[in-house]
Structure formats: C-alpha cells, structure tokens
C-alpha cells in the first residue's frame, strides 16, 4: 500500500509553486517532481492542475518564464520567481504560519478538554 495521500488545500498550490521556484529557473515537470519528492509523496497533486496555476502566476507577474534548453537537451519553459513573487511568497508564508499555528493551537486546546 502507498502512504496515505492528502488533497491540497485550496490556494496552497500557488504557495508551493512559488517556494519551489525560489531554487532558480525550473520547468513545469521539475516543479511537479519537486513537490512530490519534498512532500515525500504525501500530497496528491494532479499534475495537470499545475499548469493553469503556473500560467495564472505568470499572468499576475509573480513568475517570469523563458524558453531554454533542458537537461535532456529539449526546449522547455522555465519559470523563475520575480521580485514581486518573492514579496508575495514572503507574505503568504507568514500568513500560512500564522494560520497553521492558530489552527494547531485550537486543535491542541480542544484535545486537552476532551481528555
């Protein structure tokens, strides 16, 4: 059996993409691989859904894209974080931490009450 997988909460895919893109110019397939690897296969990302997110981020100016030769020698579209994207990543990461801390706190509290 595989390890149990979780669906990605709404909106977090953008955050993950931005984070992965900090590593430098990277193409779509590599982003998908990275997310899979880093999350140790715990997250279920339908690979197709990555691309609309990439295009959306590019459209918002958070990512910039260019066509370059990939490691296999074929042309691929590489994405990199823009300055605007970096700022967005920072604020979204902070938001995420605040949110998860708050949710964790609530969950711990109610755990304490019930025990």
């Amino acid at each position, binding site marked *: 059996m595989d390890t149990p997988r979780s669906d990605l909460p709404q909106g977090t895919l953008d955050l993950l993409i931005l984070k992965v893109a900090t590593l430098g110019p990277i193409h779509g397939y590599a982003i998908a691989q990275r997310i899979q690897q880093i999350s140790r296969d715990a997250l279920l990302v339908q690979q197709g*859904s990555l*691309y609309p997110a990439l295009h959306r981020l590019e459209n918002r100016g958070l990512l910039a894209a260019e066509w370059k030769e*990939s490691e296999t020698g074929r042309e691929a579209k590489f994405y990199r974080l823009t300055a605007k994207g970096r700022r967005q990543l920072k604020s979204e990461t902070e938001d995420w931490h605040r949110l998860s801390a708050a949710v964790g706190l609530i969950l711990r509290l109610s755990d304490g009450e019930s025990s």
Partner: protein
Amino acid sequence: MTWWQRLWRKRDQEERLDRELRFHLESRIADNIRAGMSEEEARRHARLEFGGIEGVKEECREARGTAWVEATVQDIRFSLRLLRKTPAFTVAAVCTLALGIGANTAIFQLLDAVRLRNLPVPNPEQLARIQIRNGPGFGITKDFYALTYPLLEQIRLHQHAFSGVFGWRSYDDVRFGEGAQARRVRGLLVNGELFPALELRPAAGRLFNREDDRPGCTASGVVLSYPFWQSQFGGRTSAIGSKVMILDRPYEVVGVTPARFSGLEVGTKFDIAAPVCTAASASPEDFTRRDFFWVTVMGRLKRGMSLRRASDQLQAISPGILEATLPSGYSAKVLENYRKLRLEAVPAGNGISSLRDQYDTSLWLLLGITGLVLLIACANLGNLMLARASVRQREFAVRLALGASRGRLIRQSLAESLLLAAAGGALGLGLARALSQSIIWFLTTENDAPQLDLSTDWRMLAFTAAVAMLACMIFGLAPALRSSQTEPGAAIKSGGRSLTEGRERFSAQRVLVVVQISVSLVLVVGALLFVGSFRNLMTLDPGFREKGILLAFFDTSRLKLPDAQAKSFERQLLEEVRSIPQVEAAATTTNILIDGGSWSLGVRAGSVEDVSKFTWVSPGHFKTLETPLLAGRDFSETDTATSPKVAIVNQTFVRRVFGGVNPIGRTFRTSPEPNYPATEYQIVGVIKDTRYYNLRDQPPPMSYAPADQFPAGSASAMYIRSSAPLAALSSAIQRRLTASHPELGMEFRVFQKQIEDTLMRERLMAALSGFFGALAVLLATIGLYGVIAYLVVRRRNEIGIRMALGASRAQVVGLIMKDAALLVAIGVAIGAVCSLALAQTAASLLFGLKTYDPLTFLAAALALAAVAGLGSYLPARRASRLDPMTALRYE
C-alpha cells in the same frame, strides 16, 4: 505583454502551451520507462497522472485572462464556418431576420420622428403648450389647440410661470415672388417673443425680437428657413438685406433660422416667417376678434418652475383672463360656457403634431404587429436551429466527453445565433429606411406631404440592437440549452437509431409552433378587422355623390372687388362654369363636405335648443351632389338677399328639433354671432342625411341656406359635376375663366380623391396589417411544415413498421395530420383568446365592426386552419408514400 498583444500572438501561444504540456508528458513517460514500465504502460500512467489534457489547456487559457476573448473569436470563427457550410439556411435566416427587424425599426423610426424626438432648441423640456383644457365647447374641439389673439395678450400680461410666451400660425400657401416667378410657400406668422424664447441662433443675419413685432409695424422683415435659403438663394449671405415679394408686398430678408429647425409642428416644414404685426394691416380684425381661435401658444418655463405649478397658475388666472376677453354678440348661455373654460400647460418639448394625434395609436399598434411578426420569424428560426442542434447532437456529445464545458457549448451555440442576429439587424437597419420612406410616401397626398426628420439617431440604433438581441435570445436560447443538455453516452449511442421517437424530444418545437399559430391568428384577426373597417368606410353611402365631382376654389383678392359686388361676381362665375359644355351641374358652397371643416350656429325652435351645422349654397347644390330632396323644394333664383330667409334641413335636424314631424313651413331662429346676426329661417325643404366632416361620424343636424343670403362675404368653393375626365375638365375651366378674368386665382381638386385621402390612416392600417397578417400566416405555415416534415423523418422507422404491419396510406396520413391538427387547434384557441383581449386596443380605429366580430374570428380561424392543414398535409402525404423496406433500413 498586454492581453491584446498576447491575443495577437495567440497561435504562437497555443503552440507553446502544447509544447509545454507535451514536454511534461514525454519527460514523465521517459522517467516511467526508466523505472521499468513498458512503453505502453508508461504512456497510460503518464496520462492518468496528468488528467484531461483538453481540460488543462482550457484552464490555462482561462488563467491567461484572455480566454473569453479568444473563446469568442474562436466561437465566431467556428460559427462562420458552420454558416458558410449551409448557405441556404444562412441566407434564409438573415433575410427573415432583416425583414422582421427592419419592419420593427421602420415603425419605430416613424414613432421616433413624430413622437419621441425633441425640438432642436436649447432645453426643449422647458417648452409647454398653453391650451384650453375643458373643450369641447365654444367651438373648441378636443384636438384643436389654438387661442384667440386677445387671449394670448392677456396671458402674456398676467402669467408669472414662463420666461416667454409666444404664438404663431402657419399658412399652407403663401404667394412668394411676382408674376410668372410666383410660387406657393409655407409661411409662419410669429409673434416677437417666439425666436427669443426658443433661444435659437440664426444661421445668418438675425431673427425677430420683440422690437420687430409692434402694433402697426411698417418696415416688414422676413426670416427664411435654412432649406429655403439654400434652395432659393443658394445659401448666399448676400440674400440678407435683399427684397422679396410676399403676397404682393415687399419684405426685407433679415435672417435665416438654424439648419435643424423646421418649425414647431412636427410633420410640416416652413419656408418663411414674418412677425404677426405685418398681417395686422391686411386683416386687423383677426387681432381684436375674441371668437376667432387661430394662434397656437407656447411658453418657456422659468428656470425651476415645474409644469404642474405653471398649469395651476394658468388655471388660477383663467377666470380673469376670460372675463377680460369675453366675446360680444353671443347669447348669455354661450358666454356662460365661455367663462367656464380653463387654461392649462402641457409638455411640448417635442413640438406639436397633428400627425401624432392622428397616427399615434396606429403606429403603436403597427409596432406591436411588426413585433409579433418578428416573434413568428424567430420561432421559425428557433425551430430550424433546434433541428440543426439535434443533427449536431453527436458532435456535442463527443466534445462534452472530451472535456469541453457545457457553458462553452452554450456560448458557441449562442455565437451562431448572435452572428445571424447581428447580420439581420445590420441589414434590417438599411431596410428600415426604405420601409419608413415608403410609408411616408404612402401617406403623401396631393395637398399634404408629411415632412419628417428620418435621420438615424441613437434611439433608433439602440432599438435595433435591442430587437436583434431579443430575437437572438428567442431563437437561439432553446437550441443552445438543448445542445448543452446532451448526455454524452446516450447521445453517441442512440443518435438516430431508435425505432420510435419520444414525444418530449420535440416539446420545444411543438411549443414554438403553437406560439406561431396563436400569434398568426392574432395578426390575421387584426388584419381582417382593419381591412373590414376600411372596406366599410370605402363602401359607405355618404348620402351624396362623390364620383365625377370637381372641387374649384377661387381667389378673388387680386380682382380688388368692392364687397357689394362679391356676390354678383360669384353668380357670374357660376354661370360661366355652367356654360362650359362638359359641365353637367355646378353649385357654390361655403363649406366642402368631408374636408374636416365645420361651421355651426345655435338654433332654437319653440322650446327646443340645439346646435346645427350651417352651409350657404347656390340653387342646384343638391342636384349637383345628387342628395335626395325628401320634401319641399330646392332653393331658387327667387331666394335673394332681400326675400324671406329660408332653409333646407336634414333628417337628423327634423328628428332632433321637431321631433320627427313634417317641418315644412315651420321656422327656427339662430343665436347671434359676430357677422351672423340672429335670424329667423323658414324651412322649405328636407334632405336625406349625409355625412358632414368625416365619414365615420353619424350626421349632425344640418341646415342649408341660399348663398345670396350668406351674411359674411361670399362662398369660396364650387362643386362641378361632369362625366368627362376631371383633369381635362379642370384645364378647360381654367382656360375659360382665365380668358375672362386674368387676375382670378383658382385651384382644383378631385372630390372623390380628397375624400379617399381622409381615409389614409385606415388605408395604411388595412394595407400594412393585411401584409403582415399574410406574412405571419406564411411564416407559421412554413414553421408547421418544417416541424411536421422533421417529425416524419424522425418517425420514419415507426411509420415503416406500421406500414409493414398493414397500415394503409390514409391511416399514415391521418396519424401525422392528427398530430398537426392538435397543434393548430391549441394555437387557434390561444390565439382567439389573445385576439379578444388585444382587439380592444384597436377599437378606436375600427369602423362598423365590433372588436369581437364573430365572423371575422371565424374567418381568421378557418383561413389559418386551411393553410396550416395544407402545410402539414404535404409532409404527411410524403410519409404515406414511404417504402416500408427503405424506411426500415434507413439509419
């Protein structure tokens, strides 16, 4: 990159998107193979992991923010391709729509021109017409707005609500120029406040102000309309200051009104305008007479003054104004009525218009009629589109299965409708111009050519766009929804293969056909009612002869006759006319029948008081018009100015004043009016009732008196009967009279033509409603035919089986016809109910028919059923000719 740049590089974008996704998949496949899968398995895995490629692409396009534009462009391209593939359908659809939309737009254009358009003056909403509110009474009928000049002056003195009160009168034919160059133009007499209050800027020179209009003004100026300035003076500024002759008097051209200003009366134009004071020397009594209503009065509201308050103020000052303008020479009872009149202000920002009063209801009704025709046309198109949608059901199913969204399919289907509607609308707009022009041409008579500004304005464009959109929604929405409701699996499997077709699949088409038939019935009933009314009026016996009668009008002003000779000259003219060989009979009159004119006097016989029409005629009048003399005698040469006053009255007079007993030898007395002193008349004859001012109204009490006893001048018109062609007759008369009286002005009209021209509105309604009714039936029949034929095709298998099992041809025809008959019956029933309700709105336009005329309804239903029966019989017969074997094999 901005979105439009991206759009520009769309092809590029698509290709890149494709490459990007392919790169992903191929990398994955390569990795999978490296992990030990077979190529087949690697490919399958990669695709599963990835999800639907088309869906992802669609989402990516949407994410780029240009999706809607791209999709629209794509939809339109695709629709264009589809439409090009079926040119017959496209042409038929666009033409149907163009006709429907064009007809609607044309009628709207006319409505816009006579009703909605504001006058081209600053702040037209501040303009109000000042009129008497509680007519009729004292000779004021409901649709007559003029006031007396003393009333205008009193209003100007006492009102506080208006910054300016102005009045004018228009004249149809004013002699302009001299000698052979003379021509007739339309003139306006305006008071000095008119142009200042309208705040018009002259196109050249200056316009009149209060200084130009002073009592006894001597230096006479004239203002030209812009078109007249252009046509007569070539638009030269040197025209200003030049002298022109008007009615044989010199006038100096002082200025030109702005190009867009064509007067305050919509439907007429003016050529020249002069201050009222210039007419005062020619007819001073017009300005002092308190019983002569001739000046139309309007005012510009003061800033911040509401129409309501202005109207209230006018009403409050009415008693004082009326008391100050009390006419003399009337009985106390008439004066009591005069004192009861009240003034009011009504909105006049869009000018005043007799066309509006006359055609308002007709135009709204016509707009309704053309709207219904468009509805039927849309229902037809809707049916065609539905049929197309069913044919394309498999295509839709495949696209749905491949991940296209339902919304996208609806949009695509609507794009096709939208294209058709847009093409139809654009074509319709062009058609509308031609249609509205021809309606105006239709309404143009010898004496009256409506002058309307038919330039395209934003209202018309908005209307056309709205109608086209609405049409698109009506015929495009059902097929669009239908296409999106396809169940991919079921549709792919079943397309055209079942043995029998479920009824529900055609419910939309059935509903559309029922709508078409019921709407058609409404239009046919309307058409029959209007045609019937027109026929009733045309065949009505007015009580006199109108065929072969020439009307002659004489202008003796240039003969400079002393008043005492006027009557003898009139007799002399009549004798000369009678001596012309082709003339069978001739008579003079003070009033032509059925031309809208009217003259009445109060009459009293014993204790009975009434009002009677009064006409002064020469002996032979009744013989000329072939009006039967029921009792007594005609006037004769012995009835002179000095002999006892005698009268001939009509049957209605006898009934109302004498209770129906023989009145010969009895007398009645008229109540006094200025120029018409109280007179006792002895009745010497009774004539059969005839129509008086129009063909519609029942005859009023009428009295005739001898022309020689006419107290106010001389008769101005002549009836001339002849069996010769009237055109030749009029030139013969003209030659003869010009030879003996070179200065005599004369004009001829054909009596019958003039009477028929009064039925212009009825003729228009009959012609247009008849045309649209026939069009509606045709369209509905085509619709029914289409649906039944389509039904037959879809039920081919079933029919084949029935025939194979022994059903006869008649049974098959019956089977199909039963279906059609049900639709027609429901449609006719609904249509009849709607017609009953809608006919009420046309009640005022009908004549001699009730709005629920059973014969009309029956005829309409039968005609529609017959045509519809034919429309469904043809496909039914074709169904019965099917060869069962071919039918069963057909897929």
